[in-house]
C-alpha cells in the first residue's frame, strides 16, 4: 500500500469537510474493497477518513410513507438478518446473503456495497491497459479473456461489470440513495446512481467527490409473497455472478399485477428493463410469458470471444428465476437454482 494518513470523522459534516480537503482523500467504512485496492496499488489515497464513528446511519428507520431507510453504515450481515428485511424485503436479504462470504458480510457496509469497484482482472492488473483504472490507456478485456464481462450496455472503452448482488435487489425494489455533501442533502433514484461506461468508464457512479451515502430508502412494496434471487457462478458459493436475477411479483388470481426483474453480472450497473416488466403486467405467470419478457430484457445483448454463452444463460436464468419466485419457500442457501 502507498503511504496514507488517517483520521476519524465523528459526524457527517466533519466527514464531508475532511474528504473535501484534498482530491486524494477517500472514505473508508467496512474497508473490504478499498483496502484490497490499496494493497494492489489500483487505488491510491492521500488520507483515509474513517466514517464508522458517525452516530447516525447505523440502523433501519421506518418511514411515514410505509417504507424504510437502511443506514449506510450498517453491515451487509446486519441488514440481511434484520427482522424487517427478512420479513418485508426477503429479496434483499437473499441477494445480500448470495454475495461475498460471511466474514466479508460482517465487515462490509451498505454504502460501501454500492461503491465497490469491478472485479475485472485487467482493472486489478496494473501491468495491463485499462480505461477504468487509467483513462485513455485502452481496454484489455475486449480482445482478451472476457468470460466474466458485460453483454449489455458496454462501450468500446470498457466491458467491465458491476459485481454487487445486493444492488441487483435494490434496483428491483426501486431504492432511493440518500446522499450528503458540501451542498447539503440530495437523493438519487437507484437507476440513476450507477453509470454506464460510455466514454468515462473511470467514473462508476454519480456520487461526487466529497459526497457520502447516508442511507438507502426502500418503498413500502417489498414483494414478500413472490420473489426470488438466483445466482449462477463458476463455483456454488463465494464467487461473483456470471449471471444473477432478482425477481419480485405482485400476483393476484393468477395474474401479474406488478413485475420487477433486475439482472447482475451482465453490465456496468444492475440491469433493469421496465418495458419487459410492463409486458408482464396483467398476464399469467407462465414460462412462455417469462421467456418473452427475457427476450425484451436481452435485446441488443452482444457477446465477445469468451462470454457469448451469457446471452443464452441469462435468458434461461430469467425464466428459471421467475418460476422460482412463484415458490419462494423453495429457495436454497446461496441463491442456487431450486425447483
Amino acid at each position, binding site marked *: 500500500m502507498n503511504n496514507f494518513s488517517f483520521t476519524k470523522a465523528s459526524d457527517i459534516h466533519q466527514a464531508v469537510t475532511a474528504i473535501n480537503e484534498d482530491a486524494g482523500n477517500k472514505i473508508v467504512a467496512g474497508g473490504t474493497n478499498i*483496502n484490497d485496492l490499496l494493497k494492489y496499488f489500483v487505488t491510491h489515497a492521500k488520507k*483515509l477518513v474513517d466514517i464508522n464513528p458517525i452516530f447516525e446511519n447505523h440502523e433501519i428507520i421506518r418511514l411515514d410513507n410505509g417504507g424504510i431507510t437502511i443506514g449506510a453504515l450498517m453491515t451487509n450481515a446486519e441488514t440481511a438478518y434484520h427482522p424487517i428485511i427478512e420479513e418485508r424485503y426477503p429479496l434483499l436479504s437473499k441477494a445480500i446473503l448470495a454475495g461475498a462470504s*460471511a*466474514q466479508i458480510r460482517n465487515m462490509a457496509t451498505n454504502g460501501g456495497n454500492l461503491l465497490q469497484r469491478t472485479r475485472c482482472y485487467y482493472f486489478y492488473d496494473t501491468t495491463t491497459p485499462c480505461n477504468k483504472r487509467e483513462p485513455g490507456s485502452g481496454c484489455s478485456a475486449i480482445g482478451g479473456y472476457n468470460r466474466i464481462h458485460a453483454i449489455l450496455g458496454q462501450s468500446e472503452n470498457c466491458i467491465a461489470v458491476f459485481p454487487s448482488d445486493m444492488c441487483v435487489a435494490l434496483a428491483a425494489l426501486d431504492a432511493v440513495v440518500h446522499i450528503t455533501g458540501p451542498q447539503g442533502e440530495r437523493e438519487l433514484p437507484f437507476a440513476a446512481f450507477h453509470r454506464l461506461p460510455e466514454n468515462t468508464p473511470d467514473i462508476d457512479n454519480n456520487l461526487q467527490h466529497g459526497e457520502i451515502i447516508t442511507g438507502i430508502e426502500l418503498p413500502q412494496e417489498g414483494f414478500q409473497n413472490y420473489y426470488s434471487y438466483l445466482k449462477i457462478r463458476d463455483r456454488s458459493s463465494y464467487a461473483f455472478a456470471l449471471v444473477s436475477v432478482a425477481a419480485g411479483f405482485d400476483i393476484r388470481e393468477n395474474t401479474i399485477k406488478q413485475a420487477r426483474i433486475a439482472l447482475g453480472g451482465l453490465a456496468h450497473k444492475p440491469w433493469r428493463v421496465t418495458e419487459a416488466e410492463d409486458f408482464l403486467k396483467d398476464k399469467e405467470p407462465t414460462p412462455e410469458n417469462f421467456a418473452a419478457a427475457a427476450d425484451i430484457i436481452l435485446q441488443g445483448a452482444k457477446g465477445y470471444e469468451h462470454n457469448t454463452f451469457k446471452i443464452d444463460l441469462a435468458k434461461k436464468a430469467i425464466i428459471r428465476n421467475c418460476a422460482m419466485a412463484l415458490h419462494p419457500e423453495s429457495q*436454497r*442457501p446461496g441463491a442456487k437454482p431450486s425447483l
Partner: protein
Amino acid sequence: MSIPETHSIALKINGSPYHLNLLPWVSLLDTLREELHLTGTKKGCDHGQCGACTVLIDGKRVLSCLTLSVMKDGAEITTIEGIAGEEELHPLQKAFIEHDAFQCGYCTPGQICSAVGMLQEGKANTREEVQELMSGNLCRCGASKGIIDAIMQVKQEGRQHE
C-alpha cells in the same frame, strides 16, 4: 514524501490488553503476526479471498487482512490462540482432530475461528447451510468434508447440552 504519523491504539487480544503505535496502513493480520508474534492467525491470500486470517472482533468473525488496526481502537479480538480453555481444547478443536479435518493445517485456525463465529450467529441449521456459511474459508487439501463433519458434530452436541 513525509511519512504519516503513527496512531496510538489499545486492543484487547485474547483477554490481554495491548497498547500499540501503528502506521495507518498496517493490517490487523500484520499487527498480530509481526508486532505481537501471534502467528496462529495465518496469511493466505492477504486479499480477502481465502479466509485463513479469520479472527473474531467483538465476537464477530472477520478478515484480519482487510482490517486496518487503526480502525479497531478499543476492540476485543479473539484469535485461535485464545479460544481454548486453560486445560482443555475448544470443542471445535477436539472435533477437528477427531474428524481429521485438516491435512496441511494452514487453513485450520481460520476455519475454526470462522466456525466459532458461525455457531454464535445461529443462522446455520442444515448441513447445506453450514457449507454455505463456511464458504469463505477455503481448504486446498480437500479436507472440507471432515471440516463440515466436525462442525456438524459440535452443533449437534451443543443441541444435546441445551
